[in-house]
Structure formats: structure tokens, C-alpha cells
């Protein structure tokens, strides 16, 4: 039972599944949309007591629920959250609502299946962030593949089949070794899958390196870290808007979350030993990702590649292994979820009108669709890390941590920032300024109320975190110190 005298987390996790079941019972497609919207909205509302009742001063896991699940595997159903998970749970709840909203008119075929899968996806994502049992975690982690595979494959654009299969094969290949790692950990850590118990165990250093490797591949594919990133541009580009938003908003964070929750506590010595390699990989991802982004001519692909660069900052922050950098990394994960999610929603909205993602066909949107451009400008500024927006805080904290750790490494950061600004500004120039090409001029019309409504919470968050990051950092602080304590 949770603190509220009620299995709060389990209810949050499985409520969307109920909605999905309900969708299959109704006949009309129109009704399916409203059920999905209602379910995700209700779930967001149910999440509020979680936020208000969360004890920020308590670094332990809260709202913990434990049930014996599979006796012959000694696996438990155990969920609970600390400050880090809480943020991701809230982000997931919000993003799910937006995913329903941004698909409202874009999805025209097999509507019921689409929303049912979206709701299943919400259940699975919440499960990943709440699981405190390695077996349960792996179940949710792998189960994520199935709805995502179908979302990309059925509702994606032209090259969807290639993208969906590539996504599954890459992620599956990455995670099978983690499966072996989990079992080895089970026997090395005293025959338990319990995350809290396992993090107390001091494993032999030699084994730590092996485990680090097994977990690293799984998480690095998901993040994605250079050189495991090649699935991402395809999956992002071909997925429907909601799929891209989920990918950017949540799925990419799962890998980084794994590093924080499992790799560092289970293999602290190995993490310290391999820190430099991880940092170099992250820097490579930042610079290489940004350079490739500059070359893109496809609107969506461009944002997809920019994710690689942004996630490079996140992994750099995590593996700098001090308080500022890790806080910055977590904040930056949330920020990336908000901002890149919003950018994908912008692209989705505009694609619905023009049916092209080719940047050479765009231009001068500022003159035709001012409301759209208003939001687009805000999110572009946030993606660059403009002071006053949320990314500024995150990037600043990461930079602070990196400089504290090693000045030489910090020297690469300005390069990342400059390149990041370059591709976003150039993109802005190509899309918003210049002249409007004739072929898209007639097709453009401005955002409607639904679309404005789905952008507003994100805008609020961008500035709220930008001006008062303490809202999130206060929740994080003790959990981050807890993680750092594993390293000493």
C-alpha cells in the first residue's frame, strides 16, 4: 500500500489499460478519441496527489507497494518512486495527454487501435519509471517495443516498415544482454531482484565491469549514445507525430534513467573507472550530432538528429558524476522531453497542412501563420537554451558540473552550444523567414483552439522551469545525493 492508504502507483500505472479495454468495447471511432482523452486527463489529475503528497525531505523510495508475483522466479511486483522517478512519472502523464491531442485529426485510419496502443504505451512507460524489481523493470522495458513497433509501422510515413523493424531489432539486440546481466546480478547479489537490496550489495569489481557493459549496451541504444544512434533518425522521422513525441519525450529518457537508477548504484567502481570513456562518447555525440543536424533537409529528421546532440549533454552530465551535473542532466531530460516534444508537435501540425517535410518547400511562415510562429519561436529559443527558458538552466548546471570536474572537457561545451544555436537559427531562417513558396501558401491556415491548448501547458512549463527551477530541483536534490553516495 502507498502512503495514501491506497495503491496509488499501481492505479496510475494500470488505469490507462482500463481505458484501452474500454476503447475496444465501443464501436465508434469518434468515441475512442474522447475515451483516450478522458483517460489520460483523468490519469493526470490522479497524478496530482502524488506530487502534493511526495515528501521532498525523504530520500528513500515512497509510495512503495510490494506483492509476491512469480514464486518460482522469486520475482516481486514492487513499485515505488523517488524524486527522479516522480518527475518522469509527471512528464509521462502530461505527454500522454498531449499525444492524444496532437493526433486528434492526424490519425484517420484504424483510429480505435491507435488510441488503444497509445494508452497501453502510457501504462508501460509509467511502469518503467516506477518498477523497483529488476524482473518487473525488464518486463516493462521490453514490452515497450510492441506498441511502438505497431505505432511506427501502421501509422508512420513512407519508409515506416524499415524504420519500425530497425527500431525493434536495435532495441531488442541491446536489451538481451541486459537480461543475462539481470540474472547474473540476481545470483551475485544474494538471490533477489529487488533494486533497493541490490544497490546495497558490494559486488566484486571484475563483475561490475561485465555488468556495466551488459547494461550499457541496453541503455546506450535507448538514449541513444553515439555510436548506437542510427535507429533514431529513422524511427523519429517515420513515426506519426504522437509516436515521435513519445519517443523524444519519454523513450529516450528511459535509457538515461537506467544509467542513474541501475548502472551507478550497482556498479559504482566500474562507473568511476569508465567515466572518461563515457564522457568522450557523450562529447562525440554532442558535436557529431550537431554537425549532422546542420546537414539535414528534412524538417523532422533535423529535429531527430538534434536529439542525439541534446541527449549527449544528458549523458555527459550523468557521467560527470557530481551533484550539479547530474541535477542538470535530469533537468535537461525533462526539458528535452518538453521542448523536443513540442517541436515535433509543431512539425506535426504544419505537416498536417502542407503534407511535406522537405525544408526547401518551406519559407515565410511568419507572414501566413503568426500564432504557429509565435509558439514555434518560443520552442526554438528554448531548444537553443536561451536565458529565461528551461534548457538554459539545465545546460548551465551541466556546464557547471563539467567545469568543476575537468576544465579541458568543458572546453568542448561552447562548441556544442554554438553548433546547437547554428542549426536551430538556420532552421528558423529557412522555415519562418524568406518568402512563402506558392505551392504551400494556399494550404496554410493558422492553429485552431485545440492546437493552441496543447501548446499552452508546454509554454508554461518552459518559462516556469526557466525562471523558477527550484520546483523541480527541490524534488530532485535528495535523490541525487543518494545516487552520489553510492560512488563514495
Amino acid at each position, binding site marked *: 500500500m502507498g502512503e495514501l492508504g491506497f495503491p496509488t502507483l499501481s492505479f496510475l500505472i494500470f488505469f490507462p489499460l482500463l481505458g484501452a479495454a474500454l476503447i475496444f468495447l465501443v464501436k465508434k471511432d469518434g468515441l475512442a478519441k474522447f475515451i483516450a482523452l478522458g483517460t489520460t486527463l483523468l490519469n493526470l489529475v490522479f497524478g496530482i496527489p502524488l506530487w502534493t503528497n511526495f515528501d521532498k525531505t525523504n530520500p528513500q523510495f515512497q509510495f512503495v507497494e510490494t506483492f509476491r508475483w512469480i514464486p*518460482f*522466479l522469486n520475482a516481486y511486483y514492487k513499485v515505488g518512486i523517488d524524486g527522479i522517478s516522480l518527475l518522469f512519472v509527471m512528464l509521462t502523464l502530461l505527454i500522454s495527454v498531449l499525444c492524444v491531442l496532437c493526433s486528434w485529426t492526424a490519425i484517420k485510419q484504424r483510429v480505435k487501435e491507435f488510441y488503444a496502443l497509445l494508452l497501453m504505451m502510457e501504462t508501460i512507460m509509467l511502469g518503467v519509471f516506477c518498477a523497483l524489481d529488476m524482473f518487473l523493470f525488464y518486463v516493462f522495458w521490453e514490452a515497450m517495443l510492441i506498441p511502438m513497433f*505497431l505505432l511506427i509501422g*501502421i501509422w508512420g510515413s513512407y519508409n515506416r516498415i524499415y524504420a519500425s523493424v530497425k527500431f525493434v*531489432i536495435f532495441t*531488442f539486440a541491446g536489451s538481451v544482454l541486459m537480461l543475462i546481466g539481470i*540474472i547474473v546480478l540476481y545470483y551475485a547479489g544474494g538471490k533477489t531482484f529487488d533494486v533497493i537490496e541490490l544497490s546495497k550489495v558490494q559486488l566484486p569489481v571484475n563483475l561490475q565491469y561485465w555488468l556495466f557493459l551488459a547494461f550499457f549496451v541496453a541503455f546506450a541504444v535507448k538514449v541513444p549514445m553515439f555510436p548506437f544512434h542510427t535507429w533514431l533518425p529513422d524511427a523519429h522521422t517515420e513515426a506519426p507525430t504522437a509516436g515521435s513525441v513519445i519517443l523524444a519525450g519519454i523513450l529516450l529518457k528511459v535509457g538515461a534513467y537506467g544509467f542513474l537508477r541501475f548502472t551507478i548504484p550497482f556498479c559504482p567502481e566500474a562507473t568511476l573507472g569508465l567515466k572518461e570513456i563515457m564522457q568522450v562518447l557523450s562529447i562525440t555525440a554532442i558535436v557529431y550530432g550537431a554537425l549532422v543536424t546542420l546537414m539535414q533537409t528534412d524538417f523532422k529528421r533535423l529535429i531527430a538528429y538534434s536529439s542525439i546532440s541534446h541527449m549527449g549533454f544528458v549523458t555527459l552530465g550523468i557521467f560527470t558524476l557530481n551533484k550539479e551535473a547530474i541535477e542538470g542532466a535530469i533537468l535537461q531530460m525533462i526539458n528535452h522531453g518538453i521542448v523536443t516534444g513540442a517541436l515535433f508537435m509543431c512539425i506535426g501540425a504544419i505537416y498536417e497542412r502542407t503534407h511535406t517535410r522537405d525544408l526547401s518547400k518551406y519559407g515565410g511562415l511568419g507572414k501566413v501563420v503568426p500564432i504557429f510562429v509565435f509558439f514555434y519561436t518560443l520552442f526554438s529559443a528554448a531548444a537553443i537554451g536561451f536565458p529565461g527558458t528551461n534548457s538554459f538552466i539545465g545546460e548551465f548546471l551541466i556546464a557547471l558540473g563539467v567545469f568543476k570536474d575537468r576544465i579541458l572537457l568543458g572546453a568542448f561545451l561552447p562548441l556544442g552550444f554554438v553548433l546547437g544555436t547554428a542549426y536551430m537559427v538556420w532552421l528558423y531562417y529557412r522555415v519562418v523567414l524568406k518568402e512563402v513558396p506558392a505551392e504551400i501558401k494556399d494550404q496554410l491556415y493558422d492553429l485552431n483552439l485545440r492546437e493552441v491548448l496543447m501548446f499552452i501547458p508546454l509554454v508554461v512549463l518552459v518559462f516556469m522551469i526557466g525562471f523558477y527551477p527550484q520546483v523541480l530541483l527541490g524534488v530532485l536534490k535528495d535523490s541525487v545525493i543518494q545516487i552520489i553516495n553510492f560512488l563514495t
Partner: protein
Amino acid sequence: MINLTPFFPELLFIGFTLFYFVLGLWIKKRVVHSLLVIAFSVLTLLTLFQVQGEAFKGMFVADSFSQILKLVFLINLGICSLLGMNYSQIKDDLFYEFNLLLMLSTLGMMFMVSSKELLSLFLSLEFMSLCLYLLAGFVVTDPKANEASLKYYLLGSMFSALLILGISIFYSIFGGTTFKVIAENLSLISQHSFYLFTGTILILSAFTFKAGLAPFHQWSPDVYEGAPTPVTAFMSVGPKVAAIGAMASFLTEALSQKPELWVGPLIFVALLTAAIGNVLALRQVNLKRLLAYSSIAHAGYLLLAVIACSNSGLKAISFYALVYTFMNLGAFATLISFPQGERINGFLGLSHVNLFLAVSMLVFLFSLTGLPPFGGFVAKFFIFKSIIESGYTWVAVICILFSILSAYYYLRVGVKMFFYEGQISMPSMAISLRLVLVVALCFTIILGVFPFLP
């Protein structure tokens, strides 16, 4: 007086078989045949878990391991009889024989996993196989079926000869053929007994052949493709599980003290099987052949638990067998209910025509791949857990790396069903097939979400 209580389920089943042998001649309707067979299996099932113990001076033992495998065989029998009912190439007047052979073969399997003595093991294995040779060539007019039957028979009898040779070597060494005698005298044999090693290899190669493990797997794709689909479904579960189960109980009870005799060869077989089963499945365009290769790969996973040679290994085998029965028979049921389905390209756009069929096929495929939340995942996890517990982590790593390939070939079928548009027509599905699909689907999911062992 011999204590026959542990033997009761088999006795009952023999009774049912004889009853059906006589009565079946007068039954005209296919439904009645199938219903009778199902009723017999269910009644036997009910008695199955009531009795435990040994009979015939320890030659026959009903323990929890063999009981779960018998459960698997009986489920397999019931479902395959239903599948046969809807398979038009088996003519009405032959359906009686078809069911009878299925029952007799199942009887052989039940004895096989309970025998704790090499000669009775050999007899029950032969009993099972003879029925299977006939079943493989059941559609006499089909040249492919004839080829399958003949190939299976010739190769099968060769390996039976090897098995009996191995048994006679064992008899000459130990002066007895019960597992107990072998285990008791094993420590007296010098470390490098050439005869003991030869005998072991001969016996194991026969099991390897029956389970369709590499390098003795070549018969299985041809036979699986040629045999009528319900028979293929039957063969892909029952005999495989029986051979693996018999091998597991032989190794754990007779030879567990000398693992150096058999662990090396079996690891070689397991790795080769994982490689061959998965790599060759990649290029198949015929779904039946694809499932044949995939069942080779699955037998490889089962073998991993045999190598583990522990209590949890035996449990893992029984759970895997149970899940595998449902997911694999489910996939075959889809194949039968969809006439164009033998070629993978025949599945183009199936989800537009019949969403239920497409979704259930997808669930079976994901479960076969080993993705949660389906039974196949828990089963695979259990297998890998048992082998890592026994200390062969590197074998598990290599096998799981090969299993990545399996994701590709299973997905390929899913891609055809869901991501393409196709012009296919679909006759309405028979109720019995729907029933099989629903049962298989339910258990594949339940065993994944709330796994249990009877």
C-alpha cells in the same frame, strides 16, 4: 502385488484408447471424434495430478516433472485433434485413424517421460515414433507427404538402432539398465572409459535426433513441410518435449555425477542448434518451414535447461514446454484457419480482413520471440536463469545473441500482416478453430502475466 496407483492415469488412457479403437468405427461425424478425444484427454488430466510415486520396481515413476510433461502431451493431443478436424485434406473416413494414431503416439510419449529404465524408454520411444511415421505420410496422395514419411522413417530407424546399441553398451558396463543401477555404479567406472563415453554419445544422439537438434536436424524442415499441418503441429510439440524430457531425466538421474561425460557435447549441440535454427530461418518464405526452423531453435533453448542439470532446470523445462505448447499450436492454428497462409506473402494485409486472427498471430509470434508480457518471455527467462545458476553464463550469452535473429524473422510475418495492404479473401472461421485460438491466446497471455506451474 505391484502397486499400480501411480500408473493409473496411463491405465485409464489405455482404456480410453481401446474404447475408442472399437467405438470409433461407428462414429460418422468429425465433431464427435474430436469431442471424444478431448473428453478422454480431460478425464485423464483430472487424474494426472492425483497420484505420485513409482511402479514396477522403480521402472516407472510419476513425479511432478513427468506429470507436467504429460499435461503438455494431453493438451497437445486435444488441440491437434481439433486442428485435424478442420483440415480438409484428411478425409472423413480416415479421421478415425488419425485420432487413434494421435492417441497412441501420446501414450508413447507419456511412458517415455516416466520410464526410469533404458529398455522401457526405448520401447516407448519406438511406440511413439511408429505412429508418427504413419502420421507424417497421412495424406497418401501428396508426394511431399510420402517423401516426408519415408525420410522420417528411414532416418528414425537408424537412430533407433544407434540407441539400442548405446543401451547394450550400457548394459555391458553396468549389468543393468535402470537409472538407479547406472547412478550407483557410475563412480566405479574409471575416468576415461571409452565404452561409457561411446554409449552415452550414442544414446544422446538418438534423443538429439528425436528432438530435432542440430546436427541431426536435417529431417525436420522437410518432414514438417511435407506432413499435413495438424500433424506438423503435433510433431513440433509432443515428440520434441518427450525427447528432451526423457533426456533430462536420464542425465539428471543416471549420469549427473559425471557431467564431464556429456556437458561438452551437449553445449556444442546447443550452440550449433541456436546458430543453425536461427540463421536458416531467416531466409524461409514458407511459414511452415519457418516454424520448423524456429522449433529447432526452441528445442535448443530447452536443451540449455537440460545442460543446467538441476532442479530448477527441470522446472524450467516443464514451464517452457507448457508455454511453448500454447504459443506454437496457436501459430499453427492460425496457419490452418488461413488457407493462403503457407507462404508468408499470403499474409499481406491480413489485419484488414480479420483483425482477431492477425492480432492473435502477432501475440504468438511475439511470445515465440520472447517478448514480455507473454508467456514465452517468462519461459525463456526461466531457462536462462537455470543455466546461469549452473555456471554456464557464456553459453547463455552466445545463445541469446543468436536469438536476436529470431526477432527479425518473426517480425517479418507481423510486418506482412499489419503494415501492408493486400487483396485477400478470408473464409469465415470454424468455431472450433476460434476456440483453439482463444484458448491458446488466453494461456499465452496468462502464463506471461501470472505465471504458475501446476
